[in-house]
């Protein structure tokens, strides 16, 4: 059942990227990111209110943990630019390829506090299949 939910989240991601792309086409990339964050902040504030949680800042935790918001901005900017030029499916597929690539690197070297899992050469087969799929999507 949870697997079905995971697929549904994927559907939501595509719908989100599409909505954001439409917004970007009307008001430009930077203003779109601004609106997206205003709506997002309102939504999460509402959730906190409903759950009766107070926002906190904890001292003594690594500063880089607070950079998620900055990474998020870059991500939405990049996604909006690519969506307008490549369409939804290709943008998302290339993004997944990037995700797999970086996760393999993180796993192999055990970066960012993760446990190291050596990269297995057999996985090059999977990556090649994915690449062929991406090339077909791109040139069609």
């Amino acid at each position, binding site marked *: 059942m949870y*697997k079905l939910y995971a697929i549904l989240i994927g559907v939501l991601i595509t719908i989100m*990227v599409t909505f954001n792309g439409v917004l970007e086409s009307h008001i430009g990339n930077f203003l779109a990111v601004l609106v997206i964050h205003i709506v997002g902040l*309102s939504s999460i504030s509402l959730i906190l209110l409903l759950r009766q949680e107070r926002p906190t800042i904890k001292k003594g935790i690594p500063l880089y943990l607070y950079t998620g918001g900055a990474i998020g901005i870059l991500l939405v900017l990049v996604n909006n630019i690519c969506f307008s030029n490549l369409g939804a499916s290709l943008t998302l597929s290339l993004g*997944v390829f990037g995700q797999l690539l970086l996760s393999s690197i993180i796993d192999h070297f055990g970066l960012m506090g993760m446990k190291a899992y050596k990269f297995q050469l057999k996985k090059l087969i999977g990556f090649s299949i994915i690449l062929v799929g991406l090339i077909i999507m791109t040139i069609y």
Partner: protein
Amino acid sequence: MLYIVLAIIGGFLTILSMVVNAGLGKEIGVFRGTFINYVVGLSLILIMVLMLGSFLDIKTLTSIPFYAFLGGALGVIIVASSNVIIPKIPAIYTVLLNFIGQIVAGIIIDYIRFDFISKGKIIGGILVILGILYNSMIDKKQLRDGNNA
């Protein structure tokens, strides 16, 4: 080509933000962490927009279809529901299942927007899914062998 590289970088950023957000969520709670994220994000983009000197005018805003404003809310829903679901399914399936949902919705949306179904996108999408599946199986085997050793 530039956009292709950019889209792959988008994938890198996705992973980075997942790792960082999970770290912050562990420290102060998922919803509080998400709140901080949006505060930091909004402050930064506000500064950028002010520096660029671009402003929202009401006339343009009212001409935009309402649904286009919902992306930000969807983003929060996605983060919140991922945090509930991801711990409950094996991590190696998360990317795969997410991608299946994304690619199917992507093909349907491209069809609605541009009014054609691209065979290449479907064939390519299936190949990408197969590739992820194959690598997931290798990961699974490695995890199992690692646990037994």
